């Protein structure tokens, strides 16, 4: 490309910025709108929620939420919490040492191990359903929250190892040298040096585990029925609704989505890093 005199910019810098901003806001609001509508409908009465034309201005009321909360929703929420927290803890406990082994003191076949881990993430869930169902049945783990904890750990462990490893790789060597000079043993090194620095990595991993476990539906719906049913399954009851139920539906949907929405919004950077398995920082 030949060197030419810089061309004068077309249009006013301020004006084009405004235009692009407007476009950006329109697009963002379009995408966000269903979520907003869900929250709005949840704050209406049933009559307002099903009105034609749709009610735009209204006095918010919490009666839909109250109804949902009194309608046996808490057990579903608690089950989701147990499954999510349990599996996330396991992922960290088991995954951190593994990530350490693959990052700080690597073994010879690091790449193979990583490859294997990630490849399990790509297995279609549906394929394993039948044997897992039969295994759960024979082990009396059907409709037991433990089955979900085990499966969610399996689903999230590869991603967790990969993510934690990418965080561990960022720890400067000097810190390890210093610890070694001090005569630190394996565990001491881990606790004193690694743990404080990998806390953001643990946060990111927990976030990703939270998102995928909380929203998980396929195994939850097939391996549980009444005792261990998680939040998504509560929503199944709304599929064939009779009478006015849009406000309750929206309230239930909002309650189910709130934890992940909050978590994802607070920690967007970790989210991106987790979604791309650490490849994108």
């Amino acid at each position, binding site marked *: 490309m*030949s*060197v*030419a*005199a810089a061309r004068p910019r077309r249009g006013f810098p301020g004006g084009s*910025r405004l235009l*692009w*901003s407007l476009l*950006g806001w329109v697009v963002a609001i379009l*995408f966000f709108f*269903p*979520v907003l*509508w*869900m929250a709005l409908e949840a704050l209406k009465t049933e009559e307002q929620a*099903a009105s*034609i034309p*749709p009610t735009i201005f209204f006095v918010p009321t919490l009666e839909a939420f109250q109804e949902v909360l009194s309608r046996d929703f808490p057990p579903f929420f608690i089950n989701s919490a147990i499954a999510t927290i349990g599996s996330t803890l396991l992922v960290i406990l088991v*995954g951190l040492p*593994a990530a350490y*082994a693959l*990052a*700080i*003191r690597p073994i010879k076949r690091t790449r193979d191990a990583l*490859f294997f*881990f*990630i490849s399990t993430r790509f297995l*279609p*869930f*549906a*394929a394993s359903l*039948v*044997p897992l169902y*039969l*295994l759960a049945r024979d082990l009396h783990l059907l409709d037991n929250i433990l089955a979900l904890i085990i499966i969610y750990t*399996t689903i999230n*462990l590869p991603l967790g190892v990969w993510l934690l490893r990418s965080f561990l*790789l960022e720890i400067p060597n000097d810190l390890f040298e210093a610890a*070694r000079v001090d*005569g630190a043993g*394996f565990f001491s090194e881990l606790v004193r040096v690694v743990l404080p620095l990998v806390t953001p990595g643990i946060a990111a991993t927990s976030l990703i585990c939270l*998102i995928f476990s909380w*929203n998980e539906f*396929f195994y939850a719906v*097939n391996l549980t029925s009444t005792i261990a049913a998680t939040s*998504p399954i509560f*929503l*199944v009851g*709304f599929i064939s*609704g009779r009478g006015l139920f849009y406000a309750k539906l929206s309230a*239930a*949907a909002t309650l*189910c989505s709130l934890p992940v929405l909050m978590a*994802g*919004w607070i920690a*967007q950077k970790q989210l991106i890093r987790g*979604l*791309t*398995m650490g*490849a*994108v*920082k």
Partner: protein
Amino acid sequence: MSQPNVGNGAVAGRTGAPGFARGRTAASAARRDSWLRRLPLLPALVYVFLITQIPFVLTVYYSLFSWNLLRPGSFRFAGLQNYAAVVTEPSIRIAIANTVVLTLCAVAISVVIGVCVALLLNREIFGKGVLRTLMIAPFLVMPTAAALIWKDTLLNPIFGLVDYILSPIGLSHMDWVNRFPMATIVTIEVWRWTPFMMLIVLAGLQSQNLETLEAARVDGANALSTLRYITLPFIRPFIELGALLGSLFIVQTFDSIYMTTQGGPGQATTNIPFLLYLVAFQGYDIGRASAIGVVAVILTMIVASFALRTLFTIFHVEARR
């Protein structure tokens, strides 16, 4: 300055720790150290291996048998009979076709929109952070919840918001979900996955070398040329990563189908995961379901190998910086 390949090739420096070598031969010290290194990895490796490979082996095993859970004692060897059915039965071919259509459409559309939005958000516009926050909401919302919201409050023929908005142009009382089932599912998935594509591409855009862009501007390149010759080639691996990862997830779409169309009308929106669910839990045909599962895994592996290759390419790009 962090080293991406910590330890690789630097084995000599690490294993020579004074504590181990004292009073032992170098060989046994190296062996012991090698085992100590592997130890932390074992729990994770064994755990994942057991819970992913054993079911897969069992799936292959069951696929060779004919077994209906509703008929006790019907377990008998059937060889490749189930696979023959996979090839000949129309319902399975329909499911594969639906899966391909759904995945291709959803991925293609969400990539295109995602790239455009990413380019938009990469500019200097007001409230970028808020916009990004708004944009990722569709991805975070529980898929089952989102599907219900779309079906009942937006696309409902009578009470839905979409109906209200489109009634001035005469499209009122249109039963979108039942008349355009596949389009509905694709719309919901595009809505859900565009933020994912956008985030990946945006991260790629933000990692561009500003000096290169500045040099291009000085050389007289206008915005369009810069986009075409510098930016797009740069973010291509990110687009590929997003497309491949997205495909692997969208292929497994189950939640939205279950909550909106239940695979219907007829089989219009039955994809492979949903078919598997139907065959296994409504037909209780274990052998047939297993054969479908094996086929699904093989097809997925082909796509996954491309995804893995791309992932490692980006990984190496990151390491070299």
